[in-house]
């Protein structure tokens, strides 16, 4: 297995994995989407809401605000010592107390734990007009993406096959060059060359249009993986997902041993 970074930013990574079965690549993807824990508001107490939005609407909007947090410091609520009642080890309160006229932003929340705070301070939550008031206590907890999409650590997390394009006995009719919707084929001298194989979507337009059947697009075991993260660096998301997968594999081995003995 070989990994090669194509793009390497804090919030987005694109990399190529070579010679790996699809199942493994897909399990990494699923672990990232569904199993990496993040912090999000799950419960709100509304003491006062005279704004134009209903309480439920507010709860929904506040829930979607991504929170930055040190995840290792907190427990899952159902696995916490408090037995799911809620304690400082498994939840954080964010208080909001504002009066209109004013636009309420995510940065207006006052957190119990200064380390847990919204990733962006300028997400508009609700617009308050003259005389309107908002008094809310939002309770954030750890969760995973398989419970609700607001706990997903990523927005885009996908992979695609990097195909192999083979051209032989070509008559240089240029039909495939024109047919390719992503313009990755080009005539160079007496040959047709592939410009940027990573862009190929395997639409097979070039194969359909070729009269000599000279062009072949084949699947390989190489994949282009894209991760675009929200509340933590993309590399950390990947690392956590792989660790979770590893633990699951160990657990599976234990079960198998148990069955065999």
């Amino acid at each position, binding site marked *: 297995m070989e990994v090669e970074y194509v793009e390497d930013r804090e919030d987005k990574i694109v990399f190529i994995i070579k010679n790996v079965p699809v199942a493994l690549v897909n399990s990494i993807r699923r672990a990232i989407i569904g199993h990496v824990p993040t912090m999000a508001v799950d419960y709100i107490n509304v003491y006062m809401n005279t704004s*134009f*939005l209903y309480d439920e609407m507010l709860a929904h*909007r506040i829930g*979607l*605000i*991504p929170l930055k947090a040190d995840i290792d410091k907190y427990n899952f609520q159902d696995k916490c010592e408090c037995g799911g009642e809620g304690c400082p080890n498994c939840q954080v309160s964010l208080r909001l107390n504002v009066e209109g006229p004013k636009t309420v932003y*995510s940065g207006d929340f006052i957190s119990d734990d200064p380390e847990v705070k919204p*990733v*962006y*301070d*300028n*997400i*508009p*939550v*609700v*617009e308050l*007009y003259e005389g309107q008031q908002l008094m809310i206590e939002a309770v954030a907890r750890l969760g995973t993406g398989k419970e609700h*999409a607001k706990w*997903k650590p*990523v*927005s*885009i997390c996908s992979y695609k096959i990097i195909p192999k394009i083979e051209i032989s006995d070509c008559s240089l009719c240029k039909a495939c060059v024109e047919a390719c919707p992503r313009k990755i084929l080009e005539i160079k001298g007496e040959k047709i060359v592939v410009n940027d194989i990573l862009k190929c979507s395997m639409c097979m337009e070039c194969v359909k249009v070729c009269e000599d059947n000279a062009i072949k697009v084949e699947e390989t075991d190489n994949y282009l993986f894209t991760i*675009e993260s*929200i509340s933590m660096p993309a590399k950390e998301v990947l690392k956590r997902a792989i660790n979770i997968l590893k633990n699951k594999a160990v657990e599976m081995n234990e079960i198998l041993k148990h069955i065999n003995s």
Partner: protein
Amino acid sequence: MFPVRCFTCGAVIAHLWEEYKKKLAEGKSPKEALDELGIERYCCRRMFLTYKSIINEVARFKGAVG
């Protein structure tokens, strides 16, 4: 109010909304503004293009009902 996240891909977009509005007020086209903000995917782009603020419409009727 402007959606916090893109309906389709789940990327956070609301923090760019005010900047986008400012860019439009400067006379830029939506395309230029979105390109400058780095919004690539068409799912996120349509969130900006098709959004219409309802809350100030509602505000006109404040005190009229109930």
